[in-house]
């Protein structure tokens, strides 16, 4: 069956954006197509005249270090991220979150850019990137600009990055440094769709015996990938003890909006999982910050 007509693999960002413009809303970006093509095939999205694949754009298939950032190109697959030593040690929660997406066949083609552009509240790679303080570089009719990723989410599956006009060209975050660590955990059920019942990631900066600062992302905990700002504020300045972590979970429970998703998870279960998993996630990030060692866990699980 034909679900699109033309397939483009441009070699520059400008060319990609120009193709989108030329098709006037009848073309869109595609990464691995592991969300997009299924949605079109299953009738949840209209067929397209053209697909624009950024994986052959020069430089966008790589992860590079630039200006103190780790920069991930739009063509970078989850497999590439999972295998990258720099991300493993200094963006550990991203490896852990991308490493549980699908199986190897999916991770070999699916991109982090696609995961973020899809803007699902519980997109795993999205949650991992959000905790790291990720930014995305968007190229479109208005030029090319960096945005903190949380500014681009406007609703479940909705982002200001309109893939029919714009592309995410790059994603970047500051790698964790001295006394810093990150971790990701999720809870799945063995039935139904491939999205977690709940997932969360934390990035923790220690200052001696206290948590200096912290970023925590949880999904699904709101209409958009959720940054637990109050919990982050609470944790700043606290000692990294189990008591603190348990209290943090209670703070998080105050600020999240948990829903029951039919056949996926009840709000009560999600609440309980925040209580159980959030302390563990923060504790793991702290442990990594303290030891300076990070070995990603659960990849491929």
């Amino acid at each position: 069956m034909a679900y699109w007509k033309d397939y483009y693999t441009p070699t520059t960002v400008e060319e990609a954006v120009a193709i989108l413009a030329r098709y006037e809303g009848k073309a869109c970006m595609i990464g691995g197509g592991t969300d997009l093509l299924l949605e079109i095939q299953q009738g949840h999205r209209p067929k397209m005249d053209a697909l624009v694949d950024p994986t052959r754009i020069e430089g966008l298939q790589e992860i590079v270090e630039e200006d103190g950032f780790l920069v991930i190109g739009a063509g970078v697959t989850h497999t590439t991220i999972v295998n990258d030593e720099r991300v493993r040690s200094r963006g550990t929660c991203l490896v852990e979150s991308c490493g549980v997406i699908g199986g190897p066949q999916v991770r070999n083609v699916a991109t982090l850019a696609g995961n973020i552009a899809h803007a699902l509240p519980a997109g795993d790679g999205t949650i991992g990137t959000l905790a790291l303080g990720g930014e995305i570089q968007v190229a479109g009719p208005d030029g090319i600009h960096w945005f903190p990723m949380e500014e681009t989410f406007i609703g479940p599956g909705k982002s200001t990055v309109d893939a029919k006009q714009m592309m995410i060209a790059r994603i970047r975050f500051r790698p964790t440094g001295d006394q810093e660590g990150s971790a990701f955990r999720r809870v799945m059920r063995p039935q139904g769709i491939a999205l977690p019942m709940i997932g969360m990631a934390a990035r923790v900066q220690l200052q001696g015996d206290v948590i200096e600062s912290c970023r925590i992302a949880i999904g699904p905990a709101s209409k958009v990938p959720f940054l637990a700002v109050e919990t982050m504020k609470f944790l700043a300045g606290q000692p990294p003890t189990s008591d603190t972590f348990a209290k943090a979970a209670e703070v998080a429970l105050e600020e999240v909006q948990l829903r029951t998703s039919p056949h996926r998870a009840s709000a009560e279960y999600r609440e309980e999982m925040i209580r159980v998993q959030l302390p563990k996630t923060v504790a793991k990030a702290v442990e990594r910050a303290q030891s300076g060692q990070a070995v990603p866990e659960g990849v491929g699980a």
Partner: protein
Amino acid sequence: MSLLKLTVNGKPVEVDVPESRYLAEVLRYDLGLTGTKIGCNESECGICSVIVNGRPVNSCIYPAFKAQGADVTTIEGLDKEGQLHPVQQAFLDHGAVQCGFCTPGLIMTAKALLDDKKAAGERVSEADVKVALKDTYCRCTGYQSVINAILQASGEDVKPYIPETKTPHRTVGRALANPDSLAKITGRAMYTDDFCFPGMLVGRTKRAGLAHARIRSIDTSAAEALPGVVAVLTHKDVPGRKNHGLVSVDWPALCYDKVRYAGDAVAVVAAESEDVAAEALELIQVDYEPLPVVNDALQAAQPDAPIVHEERPDGNLLKHIKVRKGSIDQGFADADVIVEKTYRTPMTEQMFLEPECSIGVPKGYNPESFGGRVDPKAERGIHFQHDKTTIYCGTQIPYLDRDQTAAALGVANEDIRIVAALMGGGFGGKEDIAAQIHVALLAERTGRPVKMLYTRAESLLFHPKRHATVIRIKTGAKRDGRLTAVEAELYGDGGAYASLSEKVMTRATTHASGPYEVPHVVVDCYAMYTNNTPCGAFRGFGVTQSCYAVESNMDLVAEELGMDPIEFRRVNALDVGGTTCTGQVMRESVGLKECIDWLEKDMRAHHEENGTPFQWSWADGTKRYAWGIGIGYKNTGLGGGAPDKASAIVEAWVEDGKAIAEVRTSSAEMGQGLPAVLAACASEELGLPYEQVRVLLGDTDHCPDGGPTTASRQTYVSGNAARLAAKQLRLILATAAANKLGHSAGELEFADGHIVCNGSRASIADAIQWAQESGQSTKIEHEYWAPKTQPLGTGGDMHVAFGFGAQAALVEIDSETAEIKVKKIIGANDVGRAINPLTLEGQIEGGIIMCLGNTLTEHFVTDQGAPWTDVMARYKMPSIKHTPKIISRIVEHETADGPFGAKGIGELSSIPTTPAITNAIYNAVGVRVYSVPVDQDSLLMAMKAGEKECLMGWGDFEPVPSVPDRILVSAEG
């Protein structure tokens, strides 16, 4: 059209194709590399995996032009000059190939793993295999053999896991690869969609989409006017019988008065392309008057329920099935302990990996008139003549397909030919008519071959599933542990059409007191019509459901009695001399107690290995562990008075100086290993090496009727037919040889391809020639009749034999999340006689994992006749990561009439796993699960609240009625 350049299997290729092509389509349809299979087209099953620039990808959703310039390796590129790749060899050695449909995907994914690890200089661990194959599914094997095979291929010293069995005969009893496995591991095996006929059209079906509605009118004019549409047919175009059905003829080939479930077929289209066919479906206008929907079996039994089939005298009651033994009042009066509970099981889906496909070829078809030839690469001795309407399809019952198609077309049965292609799994879901009638109608209308390949979504929507049931069961026992009474009431959701409901629910009913000696039994089962997808056969045939209820109650009673669950079962287990609830006295072949002994031994051995004393449950940190057990049995053969017969031909000839024998019968191979059994039976009787025996199945013009492949019957009936035909053939050969060798025929020994007697020796090939020279035919047909059985309610032998099985499950539950892992399954099965321990083990492991899915992952969720489970991604079957360690024990209490003593095994292992796991969950966390699949969400909430009952399974909309009362006042008048 654009030029696509690839290197495929080391060779550069260029094809001019539309840019909308997927890689799988290019490989299969443009390059003819049909070894790559498509199971879902939604990046879910992984069986379409090919290697692109060193990495496995799902070719089904990989845009072909994304691969421009890439290096692509497919299954066809693995064996070099007849030398198998080590992974292929290992799959063969370990019996990791059953239906073979997933095999190319598993092998390609495994190869990529091995290549990666080799490049990194690392060894491959079991954990690595589980990560690499996590999303590459196999519905047949249960994965243990797959893991072992891959480890062997990586250079580890891993031997095939073959349980101990009796000393083998010459062939029978030996672990031998299924004869068709080689074709399957190399990608040469032909399934229906792999056939391509010149001039072939694409067929598609317009489905109702509504669960219950009256048809006011159907307008096909716009569809017919669409360029590229060759034919649009509705019920008006069905010249013969409008309905079909295996038991009751109630299922319209194309709906005429009403639609009764969302998957009902209303019209069919044949078009020049898939796109045109899809557009044509959109243009067909059906005017419906929606009717109220019957949502489930309990609602169906309410007096005010809407009626699904108005013409039936009993309303929605499809069948009331009864078992009566002794006096139930007496039984409960005798009881010291009584437990009464209600259980629920959901509708589940076979999820064979090959979606239904049928090709109709019109009578008199000549490929040359379409400028082509039929691809001669088909290897299975398929006779490509088309002097009658011919249907290529994967089917479990070729002869009934033929007869039902003939009836619809209004022609004689002999005017239709069914050619069964290899089948990528069936498990019961390919017994009813799918598109066979439709493609025959379209082919005859258009004069061209027409292929109908269902999408996964259509397959899910259309085909009969496992019955959802609600089972109330009341069990009584004395202080000493002896059961006194079982009373059960079952409601089965039969869906919109009868399919095999009556038979399936009868099995659920007659097995509802378990494999125990129970003096007083009353069982009432109500199979109901609803507006759900029809329910029919699915491995376990109703017994999977009732066993869950029976064995859960058994544990509850044991607890009340303060008795060890194993001891309690041992006290009550059927034995020779015992009587089933239908009044059948067991005269032989009851190995149940031995199976139970194995469980006890192996559970203890597990603890001894770990240096701990045996305990039913224990904790470690946040993890809770426990064992649970379940016991089951399953009839072999149709039974219940149904004539149960199979015919087979065994023909011998000489080819290149070698004796060849071919077994032909129209029974079906869907991965269960029937060819191996038939070849072994013939090889054994003829003394001919196994490799010299071929098997041809399911061509109704060349193979006699083997009857339905259902009820675990084929080893028994077709195995016997093949064995007895071979025996007669041996007599002919012996007579011919006796004359030449100067001995009496009775003195001759047939072994290893030779006939020997007192030092004189001749080859079987010679004997074949001698027989033929003397004018004897070396083609023997034998019709085997299984011993007569009695209808339910008349006492006596309802079945020719029963297989018995016992399983123990070790589970781990995270007390914080209620996530469940099954760590180990011990399964002991009395199979009568293991004809081929390798394929037998494959059946056992696959059955266990399938039933593990029934317990933990699988539910075809539907509400008001609208399935929520509309894609494979919404129906998780167990993946390799769910695979526990399986310990398998074979008990062989031979049955006198089975071939070499064998009974059926295809379903048995898929029966006791559910209660073994749910009993283990109870032992671990103190919560009993009354509805499966277990929902970790509800389970956790029950654990937190300190409740002992979990009444919601995953996908349920409301709790199981917990009131231990009659569920409804009798549905029957």
